[in-house]
């Protein structure tokens, strides 16, 4: 299967270093302490944050820091063939690496004995859901008022038809040669999530890491704009109220 055509364009018309369209919204749920929604290509992911709240049962409490529990879950109807409800092994692993990545950024030591629950619901899946979920999750953490060094943001790179490209779509993920989901803390450029499968030379890997980092810096801006948009609209509401 050919994934790059003669003009160097990918099956969805993108260039090698081009992202799919991304839209982020903040504060989309009422009950949660913080929330966000992201559309990234065909991915639609909703995130809710609860906490810090007392960790339960007691033996899960950590005396020196908060737990950050992420729960990545795919809706039964989010994929082509219906997924049975409940966590499978893939979801357990993804939940683990997302939670660990967020822990790198949250000032967990400020909230000993508590848990910060991050619920990530994939409503429609289209390759790259873990990174989309993680990117939305750090926005939701800010929305919940949880102190962080910086937001976490990521983007996958990969290899198709022998070429390193950014942000694989579903077809590229299925038929490509390598996938590298990665996330960083933009301020320090530290890597907080990194997985990889496929086949890359050391040089290709370096190229992929650079591509991903550059894209992440761009997406970090989208995160900030989304947060800004929310606070602006709140400000407007308040002014409206004052004006009444």
């Amino acid at each position, binding site marked *: 299967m050919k994934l790059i055509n003669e003009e160097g364009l990918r099956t969805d018309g993108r260039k090698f270093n081009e992202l799919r369209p991304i839209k982020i919204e903040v504060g989309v*749920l*009422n*009950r*949660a302490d913080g929330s966000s929604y992201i559309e990234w290509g*065909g991915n*639609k992911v*909703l*995130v*809710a944050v*609860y906490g810090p*709240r*007392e960790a339960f049962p007691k033996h899960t409490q950590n005396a020196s820091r908060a737990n950050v529990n992420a*729960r990545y*879950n795919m*809706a*039964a*109807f*989010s*994929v*082509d*063939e*219906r997924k049975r*409800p*409940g966590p499978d092994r893939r979801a357990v692993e993804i939940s683990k690496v997302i939670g660990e990545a967020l822990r790198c950024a949250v000032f967990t030591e400020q909230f000993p004995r508590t848990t910060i*629950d991050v*619920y990530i*619901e994939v*409503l*429609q*899946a*289209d390759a790259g859901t873990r990174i989309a979920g993680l990117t939305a999750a750090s926005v939701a953490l800010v929305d919940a008022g949880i102190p962080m060094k910086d937001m976490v943001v990521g983007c996958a790179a990969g290899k198709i038809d022998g070429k390193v490209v950014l942000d694989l779509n579903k077809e590229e993920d299925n038929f490509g040669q390598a996938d590298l989901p990665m996330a960083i803390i933009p301020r320090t450029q530290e890597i907080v999530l990194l997985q990889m499968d496929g086949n890359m030379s050391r040089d290709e890997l370096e190229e992929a890491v650079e591509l991903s980092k550059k894209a992440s810096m761009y997406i970090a801006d989208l995160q900030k704009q989304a947060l800004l948009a929310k606070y602006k609209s709140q400000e407007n509401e308040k002014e409206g109220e004052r004006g009444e």
Partner: protein
Amino acid sequence: MKRKVSAVSKSADEIVYGLKREYLEKICSEGSRIDGRKFDETRGATVNTNFVPRAEGSAEVRLGDTRVLVGIKIEQGEPFPDTPKSGILTTNAELLPMASPTFEPGPPSPDAIELARVVDRGIRESKMIDLDKLVIKEGEKVWVVFIDMHILDYDGNLIDACSLGAVAALLEAKVPASQIGAEDFPLPINHIPITITFSKIGSNMLADPNLEEEEVEYARLSVATNENGDVVAMQKGEGGSITQEELFSAVDTSIKLGKDIRKRVLGK
């Protein structure tokens, strides 16, 4: 679906709960509701279909601050041995922990199971879908219709939000018959059931309760009716009773509101 009281703050919570209950009963006895609605007034659902194009059908429903997403998947499967000439309908509800601090991850709670079964009965018993037209090969292969209801935000009355979402999603769902060399076709629809749920507070039956009302309700009653005004399913819930008069007042309101929603929200 009731609030869970932590052991630590139990007594304080109990007191607040008592005060809330008293307050809501009082204003209801004076003829009003906490959000200003009339007893037989719903919060006005909005339905957003085709939210998940990858599914065979989908609908996002907002009812006050309650928000649910219903997706329909339609796949080939074997019929049940005792109904070889019928397609299969299966309904599942996920009370996502995202939706409320009181929902916990894990296997479906009794609340989630009751919710799924009540929605299922409204659709199944109204004969909304003509399952007999979903046979691919008698006794061997039929279409299986999966209704999956994800609760995203919880502000009371999941039964009506989910029922409406399921009906709306089914109305737009396509059977993927192109998989077997035929043309995709809409699900064969016979009826359109609408479910209206009531909270009994004091001796009043409040249509479409919000979370605050649900928390202090004495009893719950759901009534599903079809476009002919027939009752197709009912369910009483919670540990309080209702009188025969209350029952039939709820039935009458359901018939009336069902007609209204069928026309105004679903355009049928």
